[in-house]
């Protein structure tokens, strides 16, 4: 009996620990460090219809409790992801994974999503409608409920796989966004994406990041994540994947008590490439500490309803 087993969108996961998109590349490189088959699932690097270089350097700025990134969705494009990256990943990971899709227009999202319909190694699509680092796209989609509902509907119509909508925390009312995604037909919500943040270089007197602001992540966003997971999981019936500054097994449990059916680990993978492995190994001890037999027992009832 696996105490960590969790169910997400009808799929059995070895555990609820999933590396978050953008912090784990296309997965296979981490197999140099440990056997990634221990993971619950993997969310791949944000993928767009066409290849993208992303933003100029610097793309990274450190913060007192995290970091700001403004990668700008660098990726080789959906075609090459399917032909090259997924082929490499298949060799070292036995289960299908989650593709994360970014875009600039409804058409981008729709066409890219379609491309993964017949790709066996993808079991779900995570729609990044909240990337703060792409001019004229990404976040603009993620802050208006009507747009969220419409976009979710359009993608859902063409997609044959479970659809996860990843929400931005940079909004006045996260519940409105979650409800819009649910109404649009989303099968699952994931949140939080990064907070928009900025650091300034005291020498140049200008923002460190080339495009000025970027996405702030890491331990500093954890309290905001817990609040939004809590609020969201209580206003929609679809499951919520929780993320935002989670660094250890106790915080995984906190996110699940808040309402997460599974969690994604982001920035901590960059600080410690073994983060997910350590968390998975620590979880049974934390369950013991709080007298929890199986982690599935802490998942809220309304989830997976």
């Amino acid at each position, binding site marked *: 009996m696996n105490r960590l087993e969790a169910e997400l969108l009808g799929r059995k996961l070895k555990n609820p620990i999933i590396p978050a998109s953008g912090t*784990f590349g296309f997965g296979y*490189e981490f197999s140099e*460090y440990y056997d990634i088959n221990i993971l619950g699932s993997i969310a791949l690097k944000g993928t767009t219809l066409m290849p993208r270089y992303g933003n100029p*350097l610097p*793309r*990274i700025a450190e913060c007192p409790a995290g*970091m700001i990134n403004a990668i700008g969705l*660098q990726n080789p494009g959906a075609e090459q992801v399917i032909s090259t990256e997924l082929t490499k990943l298949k060799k070292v990971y036995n289960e299908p994974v989650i593709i994360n899709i970014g875009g600039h227009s409804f058409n981008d999202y729709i066409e890219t999503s379609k491309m993964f319909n017949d790709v066996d190694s993808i079991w779900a699509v995570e729609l990044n409608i909240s990337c703060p680092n792409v001019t004229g796209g990404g976040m603009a989609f993620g802050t208006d409920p009507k747009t969220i509902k419409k976009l979710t509907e359009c993608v859902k119509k063409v997609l044959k796989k479970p659809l996860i909508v990843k929400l931005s925390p940079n909004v006045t009312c996260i519940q409105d966004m979650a409800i819009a995604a649910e109404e649009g037909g989303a099968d699952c919500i994931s949140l939080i994406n990064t907070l928009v943040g900025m650091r300034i270089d005291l020498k140049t007197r200008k923002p*460190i990041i080339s495009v000025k602001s970027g996405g702030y992540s*890491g331990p500093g966003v954890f309290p905001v994540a817990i609040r939004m997971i809590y609020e969201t999981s209580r206003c929609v019936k679809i499951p919520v994947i929780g993320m935002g500054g989670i660094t250890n097994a106790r915080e995984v449990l906190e996110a699940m008590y808040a309402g997460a059916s599974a969690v994604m680990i982001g920035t901590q993978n960059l600080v410690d490439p073994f983060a997910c492995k350590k968390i998975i190994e620590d979880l049974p001890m934390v369950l013991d500490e709080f007298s929890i037999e199986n982690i599935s027992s802490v998942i809220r009832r309304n989830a997976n309803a």
Partner: protein
Amino acid sequence: MKNVFLVVEQNIQLTHDFYKLVLRGDCAGNMAGMFVNIKLDGFSLRRPFGIADSDDHTITLLYKVVGGATKYMTSLMAGAIIDVLTCLGNGFDLNQGRKPLLIGGGTGIAPLYKLAKQLNEKKPDIILGFRSARDVCLTDEFSQFGKLHITTDDGSLGIKGTVVSYLISKKLDYDYYYACGPIVMLQALTKLTQNGEVSLEARFGCGFGACMGCSIKTVTGYKRVCKEGPVFSAGEVIFSE
């Protein structure tokens, strides 16, 4: 990449702001040009440092105090244990050229130390550029490995000027170069001649290829400084205009 816990063996001040840190532990496999990424208490991200010297049991780093993290590093006492990712990136190609030239600017001299040591038999020329006399260090050490040329921006020691201006003015006999230093130096150098390789720096998120925080444009596509680099062929890098 390896994640190891290393013990501080030595932490010595070399100049007003330049230090040498010797770490002991499992240090096998760290080639000249590779780097390590260090976790420091109280700082969110790791800090990358080129390997100045190494053997199976020690790694030597050279670091300049530029901010909070490097200031904190000066307080590390012998016996302190630190969390280090080692064997990161790709090193210099030692098999190029019969008469190599090493060019280092500022903190860029660090990775050249181990390289110079290993190229010793080829009697390399070594140009090290500093801001001013008070920044100059390790001249005796580098002199063991080749013919040393020193430049300073203000001429307070050695030849006045930059390593690149020195290279232009002198007719040095070399058939391949290895360079590490500020981006402006590398850009000027590669404009001048591309028969060599350069070691780049960038702000890293992770330092092991996961975040794409350090991607640069090259003639063969986008490459990560931390993973495909930090050493690139001189003609490969497309410096931003």
